[in-house]
Structure formats: C-alpha cells, structure tokens
C-alpha cells in the first residue's frame, strides 16, 4: 500500500500548476472561451511540448510510460484552473481505445499525432435517446464491401468542434440495447457525410451534435472486434470517469478555498462572515466532502487495472461519491458567496457550473448507484 507520488509525478504537478497559474488566469480564460475558437491551441501545443499529452502512453507506443495515476495528477491541476482543452476526449478516451483495442497500425497512425498535439479527438458515444447506456444505440454501421457505412446522430460530443478525428460507437448487429453488436470506429472528422452543429456548453466548453449520413469508412477504422466493443467502451469510459473525478477534485479544492477566503473578507454585522459558526460548519462539511472525494478518486484510479467487477464497483463508487461532493460543494460555495455567487463576474459560479455538468458525464449519481447495486 503506497499513497506516495513519484518524483516525476510531483514534477508534472508542479509544472502544470505553474502553467495554469501563469497562463490560464481567469481573465485570459474568460476571453478564450468567448472567442471564436473557444479554446487555445497554443496551450495545447505547450502541453504537447511538456510531454503531458504523451504521459499516459507506454514507451513502446511512443509515449512516456505513465498511466492512470499520471492522468489523475494532470486532471487535478486542470480542474483547479477549469482548463477547457480536450485532454479527456483526446488522451484518455481516444488514447484509451487505441491502447486497449487498437491494432499496431492504428496505434502507429494515431498515437504519434496525439502525443505531438497535432491530432485532437472527440468521443461520439451519446445519443439523444440513449441516456447513459452505451449499448442503447440508434447509430448503425452496416458492412459494405471493404468497409462500413455509418448512419446516425451523436449527441453533445464534447470537444467535437476542435477535433480532427472522432471515435464513434455504432451498432453493427442485434437489437437496440443488446450487449453484443456494439462496435467502435475511428474516423477523420472531415470524412464525407459527417456534418456537425457546433455550440457552447454552460461550463464554457464546446460541443457538437454530430450527424452521420452514409459515411463510408474502411475496415481498418474498426477498433477491436466487430460487435464486441461494449467491454472495451466500459473500460475506457471507466478510465475517463476516474480522470473526470480527478478534475472535479481540483475544481472542488479551489471552490472550497475561494469560499473560505471570501468568508474572511466579506463583512456583515461588522465582522467577517467566516466568524459565524453556522457558516464555519458548512465549510467544514465541504472540506470533508472534498477529502472523501479525493479518497474515492484514488480508489477508482488505483482499481482501473483490477478485475472487471472490482474496477466497475470502485469507479461507480467514485462517480457517486464525487458527484455528491461536487453538488454539495458547488451549491454551498455559491450560497456562502451570497449574491456575488450568482453573478457571471465571480469565478465561483463557473466552478459551480463545471461541477454541475460533471455529474451528467458518463453516468450520473443515480446511474452509478444502480450499477453499484447490480454488482454487489
């Protein structure tokens, strides 16, 4: 049992912490998310330069030999600055599919671009009526000669406006919601037949509805075995959940610290409101919720390599516990900030928004409590 970070992980944390502090200050972020692009490709390039985008790939795959704990360290720092750049879709999701299911030539073709920062991915899995069930798919991929033809509509694809490539899930056989018959494809976003409707999300990111109309892809676009993709999707999304939990922990830490600091500055009845026990105890409960969230994030991260049931139980426990902590901390932070908490001007409201949307990504509290029960 060991809760220490390696020297390398400490260095990554320090480096990213500096980058977020010095180049991702609040005003710069505000301008960037309101700009036409909505993100800062130059930050992405810098992350590539620092080796952050290649951290979680093995050296054989062209990365730097890290793993889930490295992703956790990185995402905690991103969470502190509400970094919008698409690390999870590109590195954790696309990277995960390639690592766990990719052929040698698929890895060869794509990992280099991810590590260098030249390829940006989005993960098109959700559908308007699928809710959190990865097998509940209306998008189809029909075998056609030397490849497949994709048709369907993917919902709220985070980072799609910035992406050069998409990872797409589609049904190759069976009935809607069958566990078998689900397949995973990697496609270039500019493939003929793909159209997108890009938009802004409430937490300052960009997403798109992605439409596939008779999109022809070669057989080489298939990741993993045809019809057998669900287990792979569950593994990769569990990794994504652990990373998002780490991001939420970073955001919660800052939201809590901001709130404590605000309670020190803000005076009412002639004294700082932080001197009121009724607020002190609520801030203690926020702190406790944060610490419990960190613990569950460790648990999920360290169980990603365990057997399937243990992994899923740990990840669902984390998504439930971190989701509940995120809601409590977000809401309480706004409440203790009073009227300022509901303005667009104060940063705290934006942390609240990110922590709110976190719950809906890859299954909310209710969904994961249900999965946890089913695995008991």
């Amino acid at each position, binding site marked *: 049992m060991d809760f220490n970070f390696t020297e390398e992980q400490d260095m990554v944390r320090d480096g990213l912490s500096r980058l977020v502090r010095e180049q991702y200050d609040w005003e710069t972020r505000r301008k960037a998310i309101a700009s036409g692009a909505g993100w800062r490709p130059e930050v992405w390039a810098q992350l590539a330069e620092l080796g952050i985008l290649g951290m979680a790939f093995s050296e054989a795959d062209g990365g730097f030999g890290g793993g889930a704990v490295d992703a956790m360290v990185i995402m905690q720092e991103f969470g502190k600055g509400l970094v919008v750049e698409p690390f999870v879709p590109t590195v954790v999701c696309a990277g995960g599919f390639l690592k766990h299911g990719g052929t040698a030539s698929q890895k060869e073709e794509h990992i280099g671009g991810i590590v260098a920062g030249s390829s940006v991915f989005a993960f098109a899995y959700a559908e308007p009526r699928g809710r959190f069930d990865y097998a509940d798919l209306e998008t189809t991929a029909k075998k056609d000669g030397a490849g497949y033809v994709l048709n369907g509509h993917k919902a709220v694809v985070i980072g799609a406006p910035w992406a050069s490539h998409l990872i797409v899930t589609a049904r190759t056989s069976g009935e809607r919601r069958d566990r078998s018959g689900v397949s995973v494809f990697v496609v270039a976003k500019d493939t003929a037949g793909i159209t997108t409707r890009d938009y802004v999300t409430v937490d300052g990111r960009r997403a798109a509805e992605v439409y596939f109309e008779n999109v022809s892809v070669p057989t080489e676009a298939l990741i993993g075995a045809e019809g057998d993709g669900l287990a792979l999707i569950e593994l990769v999304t569990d990794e994504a959940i652990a990373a998002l939990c780490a991001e939420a922990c970073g955001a919660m830490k800052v939201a809590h610290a901001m709130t404590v600091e605000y309670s020190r500055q803000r005076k009412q009845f002639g004294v700082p409101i932080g001197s009121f026990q009724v607020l002190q105890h609520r801030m203690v409960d926020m702190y406790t919720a944060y610490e419990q969230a960190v*613990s569950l994030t460790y648990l999920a991260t360290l169980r990603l390599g365990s057997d399937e049931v243990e992994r899923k139980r740990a990840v669902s426990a984390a998504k439930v516990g971190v989701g509940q902590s995120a809601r409590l901390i977000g809401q309480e932070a706004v409440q203790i900030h009073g009227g300022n908490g509901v303005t667009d001007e104060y940063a705290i409201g934006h942390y609240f928004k990110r922590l709110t949307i976190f719950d809906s990504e890859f299954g909310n509290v209710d969904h994961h409590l249900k999965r946890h029960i089913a695995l008991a």
Partner: protein
Amino acid sequence: MNLEFTPEEQAFRDEVRAFIAESHPKELGDFGMREDMTREEMVAWHKILGTKGWSVPAWPTEYGGTGWTPTQRYIWSEENARANTFMPLPFGVSMVGPVIYTFGNEAQKAQHLPGIRSGEVWWCQGYSEPGAGSDLASLKTTAVRDGDHYVINGQKTWTTLAQHADWGFFLCRTDPAAKAQEGISFILVDMKSPGVEVKPIKLLDGGYEVNETWLTDVRVPVENLVGVENKGWTYAKFLLAHERSGIAGVARSKRGVEKLREIAANETMDGAPLIKDFDFARKVSQLEIDLAALEITELRTLAGEQAGKGPGPESSILKIKGTEIQQRLTELTLEAVGTYGAPYYGSIANDTGTNEYAVGPDYAQHAAATYFNMRKTSIYGGSNEIQRNIITKMILGL
C-alpha cells in the same frame, strides 16, 4: 501509488488470522460487544494478547509496543473485526498509557504500564462533569495540595465502565485563579480510595455503560500527578487526538455491512429478499460507498503517520464520518429487522419489563439496543460539532 499489500503484509495477515483463530476463546463467540458481559469476559482477549505481547501494538517498542507499521496495525484491526473479537478497552491502552509513557516519570511508568499491557488493571476516564461537557475546560473538580497529598472534591460523569475500574485518570483544577485551560492537572486516582463513589447510569439500550463518579475529600499522593502541575490540558488534548485516530472503526463497519447484507437477504419484502428491494439496496450501497471513501481516507492518514506525521486535525474527519457511518449502519440494521426491532431485552436481572425469552430471529434481538447505544458515538470523544470547530480552527484557519 497502489492499494496492494506486499507479500510480507500478506504473510502478516495470515499469521494474525491463524493466531486469532487458535487463541480467541471459543466461549466468547463472535458477537463482539454485548450489554451483559462480565468484567472477566471483557478482559479475556486483552489478557491473551498481553501474554502474546500484542495488547499495545501502537506503543513505542521500549514500552511493549509491537513495532508494527501503521499498515500492519490496520491489518490487525481488520482481522479482529473479521473475527468480531472484543478488543482491549481504550481507557488504558489508547488513552492513559500514551500519556504516562509520554509525560509521566519513571516510577509512574514502572507502576502503571505493566498492568495496562496485561489487562490486569482496569482504567476509567474522569473528564466530563455535569456542567462541563463540550466545554470541558470549564470543569470544577478541584485538587487542593495538602502536604504530600492532593485532596480532590467534585463530580465527574459519563465515566465509562467505572464500575469495574481499579484506577482512573482525572482532570482537576489545581489553580482556581488561572484562565480556564490553565490551572488544570492530570491526576491518577486509585478508585478504591476512600471518598470515591461510583453510581451507574442506565442508558437507552438498558445497559449500564457509564457512571456518575463522586469524589469527596479523596486523598491522592502527589506522586500521582502526571507531568507538570497546571499543564494537564496539554496532556488531555494529546490524549483526545490519540482517541480520535482509532475512532473511525472502518474494519468493524465493514463487518457490519456484511452482516446487514446477510440480514437483508434473510428478511423478505413483497415476497422477495429485502436486499432486492431497490430503495433498501440503494441505502446499503450508499453506505458502502461512504465507507469505502472513509477507508481510503483512513489509509491516507495512516500513510501520513508512517511518513512521520502524527495524528493531526484530519483525524477529526475520521471521527465525524466514522461515527456517522456506524450510526447509519445500526439504523439500517434496525430497519432491516422490521417489527422484531420492538421487543425489549433488558439484560439486567432486576430490570423491570425484561422479556425472559427471545422472540423473532436472533439477529433482531440487539438491533434496537445497538441503534440506541450508538447514538453516543457522535457525542463522545469531543462531539461531532466540536470536531467541526477543531477543523475550522486548525485546517480552515478561521
């Protein structure tokens, strides 16, 4: 970073598991705590561990500690929880023992530590008073110097299991003119001294776990003062931090959740096992998730200790979450047994209204008593509100 036990730690687990299986008295069964246990039953395991040299694992080795790492101590508590043993009570082992070896003189160490280790001497804690609960520093019991004695007068309360105690450690005011926290001394009292009177208090569960303790002109040799006169508050705080670090009770709660699942698999609702009821299963899973979080939080704290950080204010989190979970566990267990939670089984022979024989399933008999009993956990050891005050001050810096 990893959650795996090393091969050495696995071997250690096998060793302690085998030792417990072989040495834990069969007649004690595996029910842990019962309201009607005798003194001999309560110290039986302690005495066996004393002989083995395992009764005070956390102490420095020079005083009889085992030198186990925090991880080994965690394994030890897990294995004891698994076998549901009745562990040595904390008053000697985790409270006064560490105060004596840290602040006491050589004569006190020689006189008291062996009896704590062996389980021969039973200790009780004289802290709270009728007017001094959360505001412990407002305590009024006085110790007045008279030649080579202190003369102690006052009333203590909630003195846990003092009816069996040979010795007690008491906080007494030795300088009435000083500010509240100053002027308090930490004094060891032989409970057989003339003027000590112990009266049991009946609690909600029907048991007599705590007492009122009166001290009337009790003469105590000045050699029984621990450390420096008027510095007792420092030792009291030291002790409370030690008390909190073991208070999470993670291993016991994990065992409790297993038991709860067994009960809920046996009870039925709408013709199916209760555990299949979604609303009930949801509460059990939520409890398990909160417990998993607490377990890692405790392990993180242990890792910090292993790296040389003492139990700090974060042990207050363990106290708050640990006790909340213990209470929810007993609450869900009472819910699970349904209507058979109602029959009362007072365990004291002269109790009025005691049922002579049990009705309903065995596991239902203690469900209500345990639920009522466990309400104490968020009140004792510094109430959970006091823990929040500690975190406010020490961690939030407000």
